């Protein structure tokens, strides 16, 4: 950050763009939405852009030659360009999927498809003796697809352990990532712990052994400036719905050269070169990976979300969340009987704050919070093995976004104390 401090984000102004934030819940309580890690709310600019597409330009993209089809195709491809710019990529490197989960599966299935295909695809092939490395803090979306790839191909899954304080244990990286490793897949930022992982250290080792690097950026792209040019990974996956965009759209980014070499995943219309009854060839990327009529209105909505975030500035969004997180770690962490799960300092840490409260099960805690209008998530947050490793069944997670205010954190802290009173675990 420059000398001049970053101008602060105007939360009240931002909140006006989100109609849902002015509704009440449970007997007229103000909605305190602290579940953006699961899905974000959408500003009217995004909803308007999507609706405008439907009401003015709707047609099947890349399939028609009439004016509506032209306009729809233009809108779709312009959206791709905007989204590519948002992550410092070029548009030919951005593939649209339905969510990040599909994006990770796309890579994992392309790899097992390569296993039964021509030898030219050997860089994507895995089999017995090969290893795939993940981490113990992965979301199921970046774990189960790799388990399944191993199951289909006979490769072996290995993983970085998580330390007690919620960081990756890289002690054995030299052994764990070795010449048998074909893929290293990990989260940029943990959706439970908030931990921002050391991309460069891991990527550097992966490069030494020639492994492909898959980065789950679901919790980073929405919350901090991300530039694929700086990251030096091979694949990057994220979801639109977590970054103010519509549901039903996700992104797989990869280097052009890799996409050009990679076999397809879902097959059907619009992804083909030539089709005969018994064989087909493929279109160039990104089309090769976008079979069927795509989610053009959602792409347009996601581009509007990128524009919205850009107009505020991702630096500013990150700064705002950083301050909220600092405040929450302090406010919530200092309540007697509350323990933060994950790093307690804001270094290399984003705005997912998970915690346990002595003698109150997260489900029961969540119920009291909900009764106070405070909407958090309880459970294992699709990171079950990590909870098991930390010896916890479930946690309560508050996660922030640009529309959250310091009062939201106050409401959270107060509701936690209410729950302690309600269940009689604290006076």
């Amino acid at each position, binding site marked *: 950050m420059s000398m001049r401090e970053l101008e602060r984000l105007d939360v009240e102004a931002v909140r006006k763009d989100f109609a849902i934030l002015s509704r009440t819940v*449970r*007997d007229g309580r103000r909605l305190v939405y602290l579940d953006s890690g699961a899905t974000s709310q959408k500003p009217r600019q995004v909803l308007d852009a999507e609706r405008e597409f439907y009401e003015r330009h709707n047609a099947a993209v890349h399939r028609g030659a009439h004016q509506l089809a032209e306009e729809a195709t233009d809108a779709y491809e312009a959206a791709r360009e905007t989204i590519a710019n948002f992550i410092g990529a070029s548009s030919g490197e951005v593939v649209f999927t339905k969510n990040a989960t599909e994006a990770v599966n796309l890579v994992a299935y392309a790899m097992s498809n390569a296993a039964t295909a021509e030898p030219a695809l050997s860089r994507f092939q895995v089999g017995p003796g090969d290893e795939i490395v993940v981490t113990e803090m992965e979301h199921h979306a970046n774990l189960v697809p790799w388990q399944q790839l191993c199951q289909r191909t006979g490769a072996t899954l290995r993983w970085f352990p998580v330390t007690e304080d919620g960081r990756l244990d890289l002690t054995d990286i030299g052994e764990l990532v070795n010449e048998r490793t074909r893929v290293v897949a990990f989260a940029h930022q943990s959706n439970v712990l908030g931990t921002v992982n050391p991309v460069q250290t891991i990527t550097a080792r992966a490069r030494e052994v020639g492994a492909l690097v898959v980065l789950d950026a679901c919790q980073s792209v929405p919350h901090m400036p991300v530039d694929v040019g700086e990251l030096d990974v091979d694949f990057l996956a994220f979801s639109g719905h977590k970054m103010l965009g519509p549901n039903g759209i996700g992104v797989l980014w990869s280097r052009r050269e890799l996409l050009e070499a990679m076999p397809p995943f879902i097959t059907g219309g619009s992804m083909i070169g030539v089709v005969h009854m018994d064989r087909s060839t493929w279109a160039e990327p990104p089309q090769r990976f976008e079979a069927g009529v795509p989610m053009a209105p959602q792409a347009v909505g996601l581009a509007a979300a990128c524009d919205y975030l850009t107009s505020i500035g991702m630096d500013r969004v990150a700064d705002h969340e950083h301050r909220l997180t600092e405040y929450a770690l302090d406010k919530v962490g200092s309540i007697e009987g509350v323990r933060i799960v994950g790093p307690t300092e804001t270094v290399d840490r984003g705005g997912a704050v998970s915690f346990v409260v002595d003698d109150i*099960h*997260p*489900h*029961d805690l969540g*119920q*009291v919070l909900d*009764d106070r209008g405070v909407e958090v998530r*309880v*459970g*294992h947050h699709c990171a*079950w093995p990590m*909870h098991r490793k930390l010896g916890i*069944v*479930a946690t309560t997670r508050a996660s922030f976004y640009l529309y959250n205010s310091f009062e939201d954190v106050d409401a959270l802290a107060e509701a936690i104390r209410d729950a302690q009173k*309600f*269940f009689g675990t604290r006076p």
Partner: protein
Amino acid sequence: MQLDAMYQEIILDHYRNPHNKGLRDPHDGEAHHINPTCGDEVTLRVSLTPAPGGELDEKATVADVSYDSMGCSISQASTSVLTDLLIGRTVADGMQTLDAFTELMQSKGQGEPDEDVLEDAVAFAGVSQYPARIKCALLGWMAWKDAVSKSLDKEGV
């Protein structure tokens, strides 16, 4: 406040002082159920006594229900209430009670539970307003159903 409707005293009592908790032997069937959304677990055992001259069938009596579990107040309390309700009843009666309880849970707060059948379990009526918690309330009951059917199966083989 709606919370009180949900967390009735009976529920909190059972939660703080669960009845019949702990795994016991002998048992005829055991089931382990997990709530996939939160990871809560219950291991539940059933011991049955055949009706005089009969087999381990619908007419058998539930001699004991024992369990070990980890979970929220609702799942803990409902399993505790279950043991009170079902120990000493026939399997057929137990299944009827299960049906009545399941129906209550699906009533979205509109159910009029039969206190003669459900006894303390009527306290869970408020839970039916919170769809995400219904699974909690049913966790032990589903395990019971499973454990019983394993007990009967075993006899069948």
